[in-house]
């Protein structure tokens, strides 16, 4: 491993200063805010702050909803990714563009849109309310939906990339050996792209964990039911900067650990 790196450096010669300086500045720009958070963390009171009931409640809710959202994304996202990668149908480009919209959409806008569809007066929501007496806003389900809406593109893009990179000859071989389409999918395709799915799921989970805008707009904010960590951070900022820093630190730690574990897989699968 070390040897390959060394030979590559030798071949390209010295790194041009015109690249090194902006690269270093870019790194500093991205890392410095995180350092700022660490510097201002009240380390002495950290343990007792972490065990405050509000913090644990918000963290537990965040982990639960992000996991459920990821599950939902897997169930709906993998078939969608498969469709995009393996079937050519009219309007595929449009579908792919639509799927990636939540990536660039301001999450608050996503929250408003969800409210207009699944809210008590919404397109689907009013029907749910009048037929089943179900209202989604201000429930934990709403948090899961908001997180899934924002995070699903991450999963779909990762899985679609893996499917496109996978060798289709295995699937063809399975088909010629008499395997049905479903069997081929479950026994050949899925194991083949498993690393891609894992990478996408982890990224999806991390994104769901950090979701703020759509959640506060669509699900509201109530401790234990809809108040996730990012919402707790925002409200803590109103009164207690140190509490906000501590909560931010927890989210940062979780995100960094997740992404660090993911890095190699992400690269190799795409």
């Amino acid at each position, binding site marked *: 491993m070390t040897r390959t790196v060394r030979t590559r450096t030798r071949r390209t010669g010295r790194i041009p200063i015109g690249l090194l300086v902006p690269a270093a500045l870019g790194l500093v720009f991205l890392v410095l805010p995180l350092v700022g958070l660490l510097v201002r963390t009240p380390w002495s009171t950290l343990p007792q702050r972490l065990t405050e009931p509000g913090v644990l409640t918000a963290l537990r809710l965040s982990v639960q909803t992000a996991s459920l959202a990821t599950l939902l994304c897997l169930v709906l996202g993998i078939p969608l990714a498969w469709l995009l990668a393996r079937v050519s149908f009219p309007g595929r480009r449009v579908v792919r563009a639509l799927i990636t919209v939540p990536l660039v959409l301001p999450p608050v806008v996503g929250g408003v849109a969800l*409210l207009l569809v699944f*809210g*008590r*007066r919404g397109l689907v929501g009013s029907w749910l309310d009048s037929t089943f007496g179900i*209202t989604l*806003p*201000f429930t934990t389900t709403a948090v899961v939906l908001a997180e899934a809406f924002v995070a699903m593109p991450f999963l779909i893009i990762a899985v679609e990339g893996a499917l496109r990179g996978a060798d289709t000859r295995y699937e063809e071989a399975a088909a010629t050996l008499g395997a049905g389409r479903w069997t081929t999918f479950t026994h050949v395709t899925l194991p083949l792209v498993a690393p891609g799915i894992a990478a996408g799921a982890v990224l999806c989970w991390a994104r769901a964990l950090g979701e703020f805008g759509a959640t*506060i707009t669509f699900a*509201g*904010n*109530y*401790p234990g039911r*809809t*108040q996730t960590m990012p919402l707790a951070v*925002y*409200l*803590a*900022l*109103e*009164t207690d*900067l140190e509490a906000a820093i501590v909560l931010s630190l927890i989210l940062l730690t979780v995100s960094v650990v997740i992404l660090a574990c993911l890095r190699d897989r992400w690269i190799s699968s795409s």
Partner: protein
Amino acid sequence: MKAVRLLAAVTALALLGGCADDAAAPPAGGNGIGGELTVFAAASLTESFTRIGRDFEAAHQGVQVTFSFAGSSALATQINQGAPADVFASAAPAPMATVTEAGNADGEPATFVRNQLVIAVPQGNPDRVTGLSDLTRPGAKVALCAEQVPCGAAARTVLDAAGVALTPVTLEQDVKAALSKVRLGEVDAALVYRTDVRAADAEVDGVEFPESAGAINDYPIVLLKDATNKPTARAFLEYVRSDTGQAVLTEAGFQAP
């Protein structure tokens, strides 16, 4: 009459501005009033301060007022973290206190208006809400502000004093967010300020309730220590507290201090 009063106010402000010996005075027509002014103001002041800002610009040529409207506590945090602002208008004394205690105010804050809570309900009051106790009816969905922001603190005081055990479906991050949940029809009621209901005239009705007298919010305003445009900032403070400024605020539903 109005013109005369305006002229008097302008002259007074001109004299006031002339007395100010601020080194960073912007270039202006002799009285030091001009240039850009940045005002951080509570979300509940959005409509009235926007209008006052326009009037103030009209009265002082060359002045450009920029507002940042948000929850008072968030604004206070931003100011204490060094956000560039000339004036801070808070919806309650507590966020103002965090600014003054951090030594970021120039002089004492002055209360310029007061605001009272009402129950915001959809237009026509379909659930026939007449008071606080109606909000605890089974199945009633109520939005409150989080206790960390002034409207939430006021709501908590009122509910505790009235002995009403109310479980809201959500604790919103500012008063406008609580009101918008009523406008969208997602909740049946919300405790917001009278001024917010008046600003959302067409879509919501306000139900007054006697207990709200127990938690009237004082709105303090102050000149900030790091203001870059102090003469204009002082003129703006005077303008807000002048009869012209107060008339706009009263019309918006605020009470005189």
